[in-house]
């Protein structure tokens, strides 16, 4: 019985490893071909490169203006995620602690807005951004990122704040802490597990977003990584020895981010979906 069970697991293990290799195959194709010469890609796209042309990468880096794109992506993602996390935690805290009719209606509005597809507000939101004269600027994208992401973050925090015990806050208030201090020095640290979820989900979504930035940031110097890759790919279609290294550069930071923080990312996603 024991032996049979173990034997079955070995077979299962082999099958799963094979499936995993199929899952990884696209990455193999991407990386081996990104260092091949154009001729070699055309003649054989599956083999190991006969020589490594690393200057494919430096050329793609220059031509696609990746230094700017990296800077833009990092600035936009970091500022958006920090503000989303902060404002959503603040709002959710107050909405749980002060259970007024207004706040209940507000929560309902936030939840309902989560069903609205981006396309539904896509066209008028550009009008708003134009009206505020912040199109073609990072401010325009920060504003829209916040408006679009806050409802979901507030919803997740709202469920979590309920589980934070009131006693500690009451004790602090008796000791003369004002509500702002209570929130920042006592409540906020307790929200850390859900904070990780919100940081992870929003970092991935904002870093990878294409549609919204493409509508707001038209100036080439403001392009994020997906925008730079898209325009580069358009210019160098079928010129794979340029396009593939550009794609590899484009995915590298987010894959590295994932591999470094995968425990938090996976836990964060599991926690976020149970609430949702």
């Amino acid at each position, binding site marked *: 019985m024991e032996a049979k069970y173990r034997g079955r697991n070995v077979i299962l293990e082999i099958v799963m490893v094979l499936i995993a290799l199929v899952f990884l195959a*696209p990455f193999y194709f991407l990386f081996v071909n990104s260092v091949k010469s154009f001729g070699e890609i055309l003649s054989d796209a599956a083999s190991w490169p006969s020589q490594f042309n690393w200057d494919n990468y430096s050329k793609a880096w220059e031509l696609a203006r990746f230094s700017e794109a990296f800077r833009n992506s990092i600035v936009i993602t970091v500022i958006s995620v920090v503000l989303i996390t902060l404002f959503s935690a603040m709002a959710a805290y107050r909405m749980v602690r002060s259970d007024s009719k207004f706040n209940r209606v507000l929560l309902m509005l936030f939840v309902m807005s989560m069903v609205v597809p981006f396309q539904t507000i896509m066209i008028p939101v550009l009008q708003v951004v134009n009206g505020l004269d912040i199109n073609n600027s990072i401010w325009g994208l920060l504003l829209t990122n916040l408006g679009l992401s806050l409802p979901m973050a507030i919803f997740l925090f709202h469920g979590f704040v309920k589980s934070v015990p009131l006693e500690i806050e009451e004790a602090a208030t008796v000791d003369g802490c004002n509500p702002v201090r209570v929130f920042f020095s006592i409540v906020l640290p307790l929200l850390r597990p859900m904070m990780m979820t919100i940081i992870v989900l929003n970092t991935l979504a904002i870093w990878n977003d294409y549609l919204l930035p493409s509508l707001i940031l038209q100036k080439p110097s403001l392009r994020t990584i997906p925008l730079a890759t898209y325009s580069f790919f358009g210019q160098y279609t079928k010129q794979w020895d340029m396009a593939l290294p550009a794609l590899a550069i484009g995915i590298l930071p987010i894959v590295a981010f994932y591999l470094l923080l995968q425990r938090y990312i996976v836990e964060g996603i599991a926690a976020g979906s149970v609430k949702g």
Partner: protein
Amino acid sequence: MRHRKLSQYGQQIFFVGPAILFFTVVMIIPFIMGMYYSFTDWNGVSGEVAWVGFDNFTKIFTNDPDFWNSFWFTVRFTVLGVILINVVGFFLAYFLTKPLKSRNVLRTIFFMPNVIGGLLLGFIWQFIFVKGFATLGDLTGWSFFQLPWLGTETTGFWAIVMVFVWQYSGYLMVIYIASLTNVSKEVLEAAEIDGATHFQKLRSIIVPLVMPAVTVGLFLAISWSFKMFDLNLSLTQGGPFKSTESVAMNIYNEAFLNNRYGLGTAKALLFFVIVAIISLIQVKVTKSKEVEA
């Protein structure tokens, strides 16, 4: 340290104010504007906006085959995509909760495609379908690899389904793993003692107990596949012959390529109504199937 107490009103403004401000400017106002524009002939450029009543909606329902083609594509894609990523995600999770030596590495691998955006994935797969498969076809002689994947309507559809499954199964795997590890060991052991087979345990105990995760999994899968845009854009550009154009893409093209913003917003509003109805029905139906352990 200041001891002056902040008024209730002041607290409300301080804590909830920023969220309300951004939400109003980015969601509420555009939503109301969208409702207005959908009854106009606005072209997005000129200042002239004329009220046309229900003309846009009449046009969509009577004289817009492209929209209904994209709608039909989206529905077919959603049905297939939602089933496949949930089934694949569930079975990956089911097997990776067994005591396998490599399971942590395997989980990491299966989730990985998900962290990369749809746009870049589409480009990577474009290369694989065009060049990679051709090479594999030459090497193996399998006709599967020799198909013109992005060249015909049928294979183009399946190409997108394939990439979608590759991209999203890992995410649902994570959700199902979280749910499967909560299934009580005692119940399973009791069933084993009673002589239940693997399949019986799966069908009668595990699946009913992970129904809450199925609710979430279906909800996420529906919203991903219904709103799909990036992957179509980079993999097929909606082609060949608009056969893989999603609703999201049709709305985009109507507004930004044809400059018919009024018609575009009307479609977008209709799209919202459809998504809302489907999501509500799905949550209601699967919620009713959830059981307590």
